[in-house]
């Protein structure tokens, strides 16, 4: 797969990537690592590498999600344990939905990690199942089925709020 073009990245362009994809990438890293601090380390690592590359990825979003996935796994291998009990919010929600964002975070943490990854990548990362498959190194069908199960479990975990919502 060809990830890079020969164009040299301008800092402005990478800044634009950071602003556009940063929140989604951070959420994905947090869904793997738990800690915001550790997830931000992974995010910084990814963008530092991009600055060092000297070329722009042809598919920047896919490249960045793949890079954050690898960075997060490396941190996990390096004994940077998941901090489930972290209190910092994962989402910015409207003030009236303050409890909902807490409920959503808790619900996401309740579902299996492999399903959570796919849900986060699809809903907040905006990746298609084929792209998710590339990020995770799985088949597209597997990504789709993990998403289906993950979404069901997420709904179930959020049922009281979901009932109010509907």
């Amino acid at each position, binding site marked *: 797969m060809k990830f890079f073009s020969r164009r040299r990245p301008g800092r402005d362009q990478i800044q634009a990537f*950071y602003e556009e994809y940063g929140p989604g990438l951070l959420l994905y890293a947090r869904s793997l690592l738990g800690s915001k601090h550790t997830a931000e380390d992974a995010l910084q690592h990814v963008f530092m590498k991009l*600055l060092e590359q000297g070329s722009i990825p042809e598919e920047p979003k896919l490249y960045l999600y793949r890079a954050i996935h690898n960075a997060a796994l490396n941190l996990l291998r390096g004994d940077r344990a998941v901090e489930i009990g972290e209190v910092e919010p994962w989402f910015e929600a409207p003030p009236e939905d303050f409890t909902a964002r807490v409920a959503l975070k808790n619900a996401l943490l309740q579902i299996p990690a492999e399903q959570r990854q796919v849900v986060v990548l699809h809903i*907040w990362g905006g990746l298609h199942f084929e792209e998710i498959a590339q990020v995770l190194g799985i088949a597209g069908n597997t990504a789709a089925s993990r998403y289906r199960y993950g*979404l069901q479990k997420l709904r179930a975990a959020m049922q009281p709020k979901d009932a109010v919502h509907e």
Partner: protein
Amino acid sequence: MNESNHEQVISFEKYLRGFHPVKPTGSLPVAPQSMRLRALALTAAALVFFGLLMVMMPMRSSRTKVSSRAEGVVGSRRPVNVTVGQLNVALRLTDRDLGRMLDQSSSNLLPRAHPGTALYELSKE
């Protein structure tokens, strides 16, 4: 998946997308250390280059002055061919006259043992 279930899924996805992930607290990292070091090394190399250039320039110009002065000396005094007759005349004049004549023809003087030269002729006397 029936129609109403599908609609519920779509609705739930829409609901979830209404939540926006928090933004990273940090800003975009500054240029990585390797890039900064490379820039530093380039700057240092440029400074060294210009420093050497500044040192070399005066030396070069002084050398140019010396050589041009030397060229001026040679250029102003073209070697003169000296005949044996002239040499004999000069020998009979003062040492100063002989010295000046030898000076003027110095670049044309060949080794003493070279036949046909003034020195050769002189050495025969």
